């Protein structure tokens, strides 16, 4: 079957099998390997991408289901050479070690900040509770998200003045 979807602002049309999962479409068909594939059972969250602006676990969404919809992956976060504040936060506060969970974490945390620009530690923990990091113990991830929140707030203040 043919599927057409917009990924990070670019429209792609490809011939696929109905059973193909979105995570495989992104990685194997489009070559966007930033989205990782781990547990395959909706538990670890390394495959999180946005579907129409909401984080979803792309190992449990058919590529066909995303047809006609908008997908955003970690490759679509940075603005050219300029990192998104959430990426910069992970960099500044050691939010990653091996980096395996990082793309999914970034997508979920970006969505959180879009909805709630000033999340508490508890709210950040709740938002990423469907995601597993084997390296950081989560504390530095939480610090990274806080960094991004504070940074964005001060940037907005600066542009408002």
């Amino acid at each position: 079957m043919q599927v057409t979807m917009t990924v990070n602002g670019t429209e792609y049309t490809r011939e696929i099998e109905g059973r193909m999962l979105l995570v495989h479409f992104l990685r194997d068909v489009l070559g966007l390997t930033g989205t990782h594939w781990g547990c395959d059972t909706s538990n670890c969250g390394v495959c999180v991408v946005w579907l129409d602006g909401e984080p979803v676990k792309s190992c449990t969404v058919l590529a066909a289901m995303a047809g006609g919809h908008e997908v955003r992956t970690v490759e679509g976060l940075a603005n050219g050479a300029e990192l998104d504040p959430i990426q910069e936060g992970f960099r500044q506060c050691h939010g990653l070690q091996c980096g395996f969970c990082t793309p999914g974490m970034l997508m979920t945390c970006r969505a959180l900040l879009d909805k709630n620009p000033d999340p508490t530690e508890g709210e950040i923990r709740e938002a990423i509770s469907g995601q597993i990091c084997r390296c950081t113990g989560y504390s530095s991830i939480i610090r990274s998200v806080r960094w991004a929140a504070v940074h964005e707030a001060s940037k907005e203040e600066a542009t408002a003045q």
Partner: protein
Amino acid sequence: MPAPFEYERATSVDQAIGLLERLGSSARLVAGGHSLLPMMKLRLANFEYLIDINDLHGELGYIRLSDDEVRIGAMTRHRELLESDVLAGVFPIFADAERVIADPVVRNRGTLGGSLCQADPSEDLSAVCTTLDASCVIRGPGGAERVVTMEEFHVGPYETAVADNEILIEIRLPRKNFKVGSAYAKVERRAGDWAVVSAGAAVWLDAGRIVDARVGLAAVGPNTTGIPEISAALRGHEPSEELYQLAGAIAARSCDPVTDTRGSADYKRHLADELTRRTLRTAVERARS
């Protein structure tokens, strides 16, 4: 990856029913896909056709309140149930339950209809709907609709009253002209996991007395179970710790848990007792406030 199948997309409820009629038992609806796709990946289920009903969210994604009932469309997603102030105002049991279902990202996809139709005995929303005495609206060919109770809806584990050419479109929750309180509590092994045992309670009060009360349990029998004996024991009485204790004891002896990796049957009976007391207590507090 699941075994091969043909993908079809429905654009309206009636068109979905048309597809189901044409394709028969070789086809299955897919809503959020968070129960069905994992089962298909594990080869626990195989279908020749999957009919995607996500485009029906416009038609079947809603929470509507009237004086005598709350109607919720089958495609309403977990997140929408959790975030609805209207629903929390009438039946806070939904928000209690949603907070402990899976995780926020899974809740962006999973739907009320998919949850009930999956008919897993540990399903939290089935326990909630049982507690609230919900009716299920099922539509078939020619626009024919029938309404069944939760007891009729769940025929057995993973089996519902929805026929191959039908679709669940709506859940209706009756409202009564009394003060109402409801609550949900669950014991799980880790955050967002399926219940070891969970309980929902709803209590209706008039002049300080219980006019009606219902308890629904998940994971302690072939279906999520409502316990009529508890309702009978509570009606007409003033709420008290002794009464909650009595209800808990009835819950523990009326359920039918099995010993498995989540715990022994005895432990689960103990949880049914304790969670019944806790949710009844909270439900009464909420009805009074």
